[in-house]
């Protein structure tokens, strides 16, 4: 998709691929036949630039056909380069960072009020945690004991202009969330068993919202992309695409 459309953001797609795979195959109660069922779980992709992997996941899960992915970023297509709610299975459009968590909080409040048992999962990027609106939400959710809310941070350590440590350091990251009152789980974001264990623990019995700090590798699975800032922007050539597909065994 990214190659054909000459699009960007492949690095941040690959760092979260395992997270989406576990969410959509093991965790989320969503139905491709009835994507708007009121009692469904919600997934809010707040790092809306990493949308190629989102569309691909939804296609693999049957929300629409795989063939439709060819329209990604094409003229007149619904498959825009930042995630679009016009696409079946996508809850909200994002792209400007720092928007997803407050929306997810609203959904969690409404779900709790309705007593429907829905859970809300929200995926943030690490660079996105620079946004003040997220910290408004991080302060809010524990105060209201939103145990049906789970934030996952795709902590691949690289943001738009350099490493997170250099641009705006988040450390001590887990301690910040703990101090705000969250149930904090810190795992390898490519460990499928660990992902299933912590995501399956929502709603948390602690009565708190959960944050999963998923330590990931930007460009995971493709040797020449791993931990390389440039793959936030570049689109692979024909040769590099072939090499990448061989490496991930596609």
């Amino acid at each position, binding site marked *: 998709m990214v190659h054909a459309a000459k699009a960007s953001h492949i690095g941040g797609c690959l760092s979260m691929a395992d997270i989406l795979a576990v969410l959509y195959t093991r965790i989320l109660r969503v139905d491709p036949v009835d994507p708007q069922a*009121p009692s469904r779980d919600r997934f809010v992709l707040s790092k809306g630039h990493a949308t190629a992997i989102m569309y691909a996941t939804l296609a693999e899960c049957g929300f629409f056909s795989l063939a439709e992915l060819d329209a990604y970023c094409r003229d007149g297509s619904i498959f825009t380069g930042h995630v679009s*709610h016009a696409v079946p299975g996508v*809850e*909200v*459009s*994002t*792209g*400007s960072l*720092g*928007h997803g*968590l*407050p*929306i*997810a*909080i*609203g*959904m*969690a*409040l*409404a*779900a709790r*009020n*309705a007593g429907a048992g829905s859970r809300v999962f929200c995926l943030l990027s690490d660079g996105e945690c620079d946004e*003040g*609106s997220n910290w*408004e*939400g991080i*302060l*809010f959710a524990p105060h209201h004991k939103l145990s049906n809310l789970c934030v996952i941070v795709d902590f691949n350590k690289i943001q738009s202009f350099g490493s997170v440590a250099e641009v705006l350091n988040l450390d001590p990251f887990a301690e910040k969330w703990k101090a705000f009152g969250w149930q904090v789980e810190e795992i390898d974001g490519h460990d499928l068993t660990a992902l299933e264990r912590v995501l399956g623990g929502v709603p948390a019995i602690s009565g708190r919202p959960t944050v999963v700090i998923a330590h990931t590798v930007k460009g995971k699975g493709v040797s020449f992309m791993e931990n390389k800032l440039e793959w936030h922007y570049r689109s692979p050539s024909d040769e590099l695409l072939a090499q990448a597909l061989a490496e991930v065994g596609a």
Partner: protein
Amino acid sequence: MRTTFIESLSQAASENPDIWLLCGDLGYSVLEPFAAKFPDRYLNVGVAEQNMAGIAAGIALSGKTVFIYSIGNFPTLRCLEQLRNDVCYHGADVKVVAVGAGYAYGSQGYTHHALEDAGIMSMLPGIEVFVPCDPMEVRAATRLIAGSGKPSYLRLSRQGEPDLGATVTDLRKPRVLRDGRDVVILASGPIASRALEAAGALAGRGRDVGVVSVSCLKPLDEVAIRDAVRGASLIVTLEEHILRGGLFSLMAGVFAGDAVRPPIAGIGIPEQGGKTSQAGSREALLDLAGLSAEAIVARIEQSLSKR
């Protein structure tokens, strides 16, 4: 106005269990009756307007109707991108209610003066914008937006505003506050009371001046607007807002393409342009801004003399 709003909203909420109200830690001594009556549907989110707007969108996307309430610029400009992306782009059923239109917060100073909000909010796609002139229109607007299913902006003044005319029949159409055909003053918001004063003074000089409240700025009923000014030799717009993007800009847009039309004189608040604001009551600040009834009369006489 704010008391009328909360009474009307409470009435709507007692009929519709899907109505929620969020506030950004403002509304002391105003919102309590709603909070007491509907504790499960009221939330003070704290001093965090971006979070408030996003939360409202999330609740609305779960099938509810959500009102968010704060002072002037806080639930509008502070979270403008949340309103654009999260609310309007998704067509989320969120109602932004701002209290303190124009100079309503008088001596509190520039940060609390809402002078550009109606224009900025009108630019958001898919939103409906209401600027009521009196409690009667507030009541009608609250009921209308509570059931519209669309993103809405409701611009309220503060308290103690008198009713200015007869019963509101259709808030989406201009409401005649005073008959008169030669000069028609189109006014939005409680500043319409000064239009009535000015019209009275001009009548004493033999002028035939009507006053019409235009409280629904978006969508604009252009046909009804044209009916309201038909035959006038001068159209005057009056607003407690800068001219750019407000009522004057909207009316200029309505009539711009007409080959033959009366002149349109826009009276509003001058842009601040880096000057510090002065202390003073709403009334004093309006006078200083050239919006006293006397100044309005003078401006209209000046425009008429150019005919």
